[in-house]
């Protein structure tokens, strides 16, 4: 007699269990809508993001080359630096930027560089005064370094000030904070050694890549540099 309620309970339990198809459908639909939203968000924001990056790059060029008021994009062609054709402008080729002052005299080159840091690639831009052989400005364009530690490569004013008059010869050298004695030494940040060294590596690599072309260009065009105070 007591068995009856037990029997009736079993079908209820099994009917509460949704079929595998239902589960797959739910996840499929969720995934479909999620994908749709993500793709539309990506497509919608991509041109804006690209424009922001281009604007950030332009603003950075003026900051890393103090006194710069106009610049030309330059590319490498057969090992020589030439002005980039305005119509063929694009981000696919690596470019550097030659900056001029109001009076038209050459200030220096703004050169992008990148290197893997502690988290993801650090992209930066630095100002290089060709004949003086010094780096005159530095800015991080993009990084995912740890907030509060690695991000001090652009938030720490003391570290950034390393790059306002940094000699690139004989070569860049990393030293501890407060230990700088020579003009080619960079004081790294305590607690962010990996990020600071990545910045130095990026500069070294990029200098190696561009120096000879820049020197050749400077010599060929007999560029005279603005005398810095």
């Amino acid at each position, binding site marked *: 007699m007591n068995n009856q309620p037990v029997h009736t309970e079993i079908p209820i339990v099994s009917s509460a269990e949704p079929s595998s198809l239902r589960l797959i459908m*739910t996840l499929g639909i*969720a995934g479909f*809508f*999620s994908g749709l939203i993500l793709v539309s968000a990506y497509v919608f924001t991509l041109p*804006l993001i690209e424009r922001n990056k281009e604007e950030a790059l332009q603003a950075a060029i003026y900051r890393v080359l103090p006194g710069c008021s106009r610049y030309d994009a330059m590319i490498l062609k057969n090992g020589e630096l030439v002005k980039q054709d305005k119509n063929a402008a694009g981000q696919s080729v690596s470019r550097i930027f030659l900056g001029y002052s109001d009076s038209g005299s050459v200030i220096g080159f703004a050169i992008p560089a990148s290197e893997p840091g502690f988290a993801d690639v650090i992209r930066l831009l630095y100002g290089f005064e060709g004949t003086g052989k010094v780096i005159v400005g530095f800015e991080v364009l993009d990084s995912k370094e*740890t*907030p509060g530690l690695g991000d001090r490569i652009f938030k720490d004013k003391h570290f950034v000030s390393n790059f306002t008059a940094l000699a690139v010869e004989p070569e860049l050298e990393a030293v501890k904070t407060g230990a700088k004695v020579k003009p080619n030494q960079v004081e790294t940040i305590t607690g962010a050694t990996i990020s600071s060294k990545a910045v130095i590596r990026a500069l070294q690599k990029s200098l190696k890549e561009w120096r000879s072309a820049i020197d050749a260009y400077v010599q060929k065009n007999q560029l005279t540099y603005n005398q810095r105070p």
Partner: protein
Amino acid sequence: MNAIEQSGRAYQELIKGIWKENPIFVSVLGMCPTLAVTNSAINGLAMGLATTFVLIGSSLLVSLMRKWIPKQVRITTYIVIIATFVSTVDLTLEAFFPKIHKELGAFIALIVVNCVILGRQEAFASKNPPWLSFLDALGMSVGFIIALLMLGGIREILGNGSFFDISLFGSHFEPWVIMILPPGGFLLLGFLLLFFNWLRAVRLDRAKLEAEKVKVQHG
């Protein structure tokens, strides 16, 4: 349920996240962003605000769809919803507020793995109507922001000698670098948990004493 009871319940759902069920000091949830990003007050605040947006958005959505999501795949579905929200926020910020995005860039992806958010979907939004879920999410977010701000503020003051980037002690102060490194986060969180648990114990004792006093007077 009448109107007064209902508004009382709504108030309870809103207020519980701030003290009684504070996601960090009581539930000890979402430790990854808590410890990783709170090395300055502004970082804590920014992370708190970004989390607030995602938490409220996904709580509303999960609550609206709670009847159609089979319980066997609920967690996966919640994660899909949360991740979609986070990615959209990430792209939108990068497109419209590049400055804020540059500051927050590294945090935003972390929000997906914040178990405060998943926890609220599982414990609340999946069982309650949207307006209560909204209040619950709002209360939890405020509690979360307060906790992150407290951690970030103290760590920045001790570890960097500043608060919201305003220098407090001048150049004579030697910052305790450990406080902005991960061990400092663990240390401070431990002390804060100790403090809040002690506070709770004291309050409980006092309440007990009061109750006994009342008993004695009436007895």
